[in-house]
């Protein structure tokens, strides 16, 4: 039995769901194959979405016309704004999800999407002929054909779960795993690595002594992730905080040799970004206590997630050490923490469109590319979905650069530098993060999403209205001046800011630039501003207040773009370039950078190599006629 599609998506996790939706919304007849229909967009680890850099990714996916933000807004149990005092660029949202509702809603969205078919099936083989993907075959014996296939297998390829000395073949949460696909990828010449990640125990809601814990409430009047959501007015759940102590640490130290990570049972590297409690004790022996967040997994669930104590220790040790923690003295573990090992692709085998370099039409996205995190997966998913559709239609791929989006930083890092541990997005990875704020993700990406065809009329209207309102208010602030009248001086003095000099007149924008003048204070100076919508005024405040810094960052971007604009022609034979170091030749031939800028970011390519490359390209460029002839020939 066989069927034809335009795009086949293997997997329906966070990457697969976005990929399938994007492809179908762009008019592709799309098939999404999942190991289990119950497992769409599941959250086997932390039931939470967002946080620094990750929250920006979610907003960017939304601005392009993706689903993740809408899905979490509809199913979240708690929302908090983080880093409120740290600066506009790093402010971000974090949501606690009802992970059951999250998964359910995403499944419904996929099911209702025209042109998209969601089916259960275990892909066991990739069908490739002469370097071109043809489709996939399943363990169940079906064959599906399409010119573009997107692999989003997450942590399910050749997965093995470790709990202390015990280990067994299994996907996360005891689900199925796909082993034969790894072999099939190896057959087609792909290099795979073994990565690991871990998760803490889930405990029974009623077995916790809440009176001993610090409660952590959501924001009073939270705003959603999506630019389409606005305020979220639903009751919110509480999370709780407690801490490990010296007793906890003693027990863990005494059993360290039994943890799968340290007994030698696991060889793959784990993410530095979410270390197990064992790893934290090893790395930071002086720290007296570690924070534990207790988070509900759903409104209607008995399970509570213990963030901060991910572990691969044996079951009885988990019981023992958790019960030393205040509030958890009588805790009952519903599911033990475990480490999971899985196969991932070495991401330098894909290009910036997320298509593999060796198999035309094969795209990969998500944890299979060596990342960790739902948001990172979804971000790649939407790009892979878009580019698979554009590939099928014979259009140029969408490639976002490092100054446009966190998505651009993420993909550029993966395909340029690769990663030797699960890659997590961090604000510190983004050089131009003052421009990559979560508040302006729509300004950066919605016009691009519109051009691609993912942004609906409704979303585009909301976008245009919002920014024309912002512009109008900015103009108004730039045009209206306050003079040195007694009334004005009086207000300024009351607000604790420098009064005007005699004869001085300042625009409201200049006044707002003063660090101590907030929007609320500006309204006291000019009560006429009170009618400005809060969402608009917040945007204006950021844009005006940090204008100088934003301009400085834009200059840095200019410098960055100069090297990005120096294109490197396809199929350049680096070994034929005199003066390049051997390591540089090898790395450049493998990565095949699009530009000098990207080449300079490859590890092992030195500034001297870049000078050689620049000299060589300059010399080549100096003979355009020869080049034109060659192209024709």
């Amino acid at each position, binding site marked *: 039995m066989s069927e034809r599609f335009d795009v086949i998506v293997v997997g329906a996790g966070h990457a697969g769901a976005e990929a399938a939706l994007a492809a179908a919304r762009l008019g592709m007849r799309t098939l999404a194959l999942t190991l289990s229909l119950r497992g769409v967009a599941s959250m086997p680890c*932390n039931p939470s979405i967002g946080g*620094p*850099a990750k929250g920006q990714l979610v907003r960017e996916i939304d601005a392009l016309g993706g689903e993740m933000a809408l899905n979490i807004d509809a199913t979240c149990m708690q929302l908090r704004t*983080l*880093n409120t*005092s*740290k*600066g*506009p*660029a*790093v402010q971000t949202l974090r949501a606690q999800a009802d992970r059951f509702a999250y998964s359910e809603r995403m499944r419904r969205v996929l099911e209702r999407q025209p042109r998209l078919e969601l089916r259960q099936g275990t892909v066991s083989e990739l069908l490739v002929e002469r370097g071109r993907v043809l489709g996939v075959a399943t363990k169940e014996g079906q064959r599906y054909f399409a010119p573009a296939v997107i692999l989003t297998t997450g942590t399910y390829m050749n997965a093995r779960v470790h709990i202390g000395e015990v280990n067994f073949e299994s996907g996360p949460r005891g689900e199925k795993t796909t082993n034969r696909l790894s072999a099939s990828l190896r057959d087609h010449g792909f290099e795979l690595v073994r990565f690991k990640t871990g998760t803490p125990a889930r405990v029974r809601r009623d077995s916790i002594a809440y009176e001993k814990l610090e409660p952590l409430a959501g924001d009073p009047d939270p705003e959603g992730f999506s630019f389409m959501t606005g305020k979220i007015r639903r009751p919110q759940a509480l999370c709780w905080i407690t801490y490990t102590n010296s007793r906890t640490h003693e027990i863990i130290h005494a059993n360290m040799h039994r943890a799968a990570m340290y007994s030698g049972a696991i060889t793959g590297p784990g993410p*530095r*970004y*979410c*270390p197990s409690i064992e790893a*934290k004790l090893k*790395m*930071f022996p002086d*720290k007296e206590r*570690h*924070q534990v*967040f207790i988070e509900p997994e759903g409104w209607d669930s008995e399970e509570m997630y213990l*963030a*901060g104590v991910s572990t691969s220790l044996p079951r009885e040790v988990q019981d023992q050490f958790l019960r030393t923690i205040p509030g958890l003295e009588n805790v009952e573990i519903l599911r033990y923490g475990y480490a999971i090992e899985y196969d991932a692709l070495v991401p330098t085998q894909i290009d910036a469109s997320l298509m593999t370099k060796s198999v035309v039409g094969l795209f990969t996205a998500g944890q299979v590319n060596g990342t960790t995190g739902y948001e990172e997966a979804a971000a790649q998913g939407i790009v892979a979905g878009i580019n698979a559709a554009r590939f099928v239609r014979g259009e140029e791929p969408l490639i976002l650069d490092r100054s446009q989006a966190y998505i651009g930083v993420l993909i550029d890092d993966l395909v340029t*530098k690769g990663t030797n541990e699960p890659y997590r997005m*961090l*604000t*510190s*990875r*983004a*050089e131009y*993060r*003052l421009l990559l704020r979560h508040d302006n993700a729509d300004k950066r990406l919605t016009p691009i999403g519109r051009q691609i065809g993912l942004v609906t009329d409704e979303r585009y209207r909301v976008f245009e209205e919002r920014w024309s309102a912002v512009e109008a208010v900015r103009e108004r602030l730039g045009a209206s001046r306050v003079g040195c009248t007694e009334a004005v001086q009086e207000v300024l003095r009351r607000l604790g800011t420098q009064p005007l000099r005699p004869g001085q007149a300042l625009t409201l924008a200049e006044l707002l630039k003063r*660090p*101590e003048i907030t929007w609320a204070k500006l309204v006291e100076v000019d009560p006429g501003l009170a009618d400005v919508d809060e969402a608009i005024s917040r945007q204006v405040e950021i844009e005006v207040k*940090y204008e100088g*810094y934003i301009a*400085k*960052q834009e200059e*840095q971007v200019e410098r960055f773009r100069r090297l990005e604009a120096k294109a490197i022609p396809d199929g350049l034979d680096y070994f034929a*370039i*005199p*003066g390049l*170091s*051997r390591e*540089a030749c090898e790395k450049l031939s493998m990565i095949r950078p699009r530009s000098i800028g990207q080449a*300079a*970011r490859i*590890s092992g390519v*030195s*500034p*001297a*190599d870049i*000078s*050689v490359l620049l*000299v*060589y390209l*300059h*010399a*080549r460029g100096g003979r355009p006629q020869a080049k034109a002839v060659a192209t024709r020939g």
Partner: protein
Amino acid sequence: MRAGTVQDTIAAIATPPGEGAIGIVRMSGPGAVAIAERVVQSTRRLSQVPSHSLVHGKVVDEGGRVLDEALVAVMRAPRTYTGEDVVEIHCHGSPVVLQQVLARLLQEGARPAEPGEFTKRAFLNGKLDLAQAEAVIDLVRAKSPKGAQIAAMQLEGRLSARVSAQREEILDLLAHLQAVIDYPEEGLVDVDPGEMKRRLERLVDEIDQLLAGADAGRIYRDGIRLAIVGRPNVGKSSLLNALLGEERAIVTPIAGTTRDVIEERALLGGIPFTLADTAGVRATDDPVEAIGVERTRQAVAGADLVLIVLDGSEALAPEDLEVAELVRQAGAGARVLVAVNKCDLPRVLEQAAVERLAGPWPVVWVSAVTGEGLARLEETAAAQVLGQGGAPSAILVTRARHRGALAAARRALEDAGETIARGLPLDLVSVDLQEALEALGQVTGESVSEEVVARIFAQFCVGK
């Protein structure tokens, strides 16, 4: 530039001109060993010997006639100075022999190296970073022993090391800032703005020190611009010639014979000087016109050091005071030195009068005719310009490019301090710190963001 140039084999005489005990002819490039084999007769075949071996042999001409006996060093890529195959032929030092050996190599297919080309190849092959490569070029071009010393120090990476240490400090600050931002719920200790400001100020001070050295560095490389001024016939030109040790400027006892500004280079106190003799001016009743106000003003404005010359055999003239006044006004930045010339003649000029004129400026009594006091004049001139920065252990910035990068870094660090002082959110500080890192990276040639990430995880305990 041709893309293929790097494939050539280049050759040059590597030892300084003149007769030495040993002279070296050096070749670099893929053909180096093969060419040497055709030119050197030896019991061992050069193409067969292991890398970094020394072979005894005879250099022969195309007719097989022996030009010289030589030791040949064969060094194969990549562990060589240029990163290419390198052959050095150590001959007996006669310039004639060296020329003949070089000619043989060129005959067999090597190409004469351009100045600095070995270093350029070393840089292109990733054997030297930019600062080091530039230092070698300075070493090659150094005009003075002290200049060579500084270039050698830079070659060892002292500037790079100091700048790297500053980058480390900035990376630390960024890492802390960003750890707190990336892990807001980990209970990390927040960045203390006061502490950060203090660390930024320390960095600015350090850069100031390097920049102060930059002046001295330029002086070592380009020479000190010394303007010699004074009223007509005090002996400016003869003093210039005495310093140069030869008769370059036209000297006559008739005032006003120096027609234009004469520039000469000389090594004074181990330091290269560019000496500018402001032309003497025809005698006139108007003292202001007599000293050539405009010309003197220009010379003084462009000088590092001004030498006012007085005539010890005459009483102080009004023009002498005019000159001093002019220097005081025009040469705000320049240092000043007074030479009382003609001390071989009976002294008329009074010490007290000289001191009144000189004020804080040092005074040296000299005779351009007998050479008396000239050594002291040289020393005083060198000391005046270098001040405390002249100690040979100081790290001197000799490149305009480095100086510019340091100045940019300094501005960015000051901006960062300003951001903190204004009470703005700390993430904004990272925009400036990023800028400073980039600027300092231009001196050492490194990239940024990966390092910060690595540091965060080395220093802070974070994670879910």
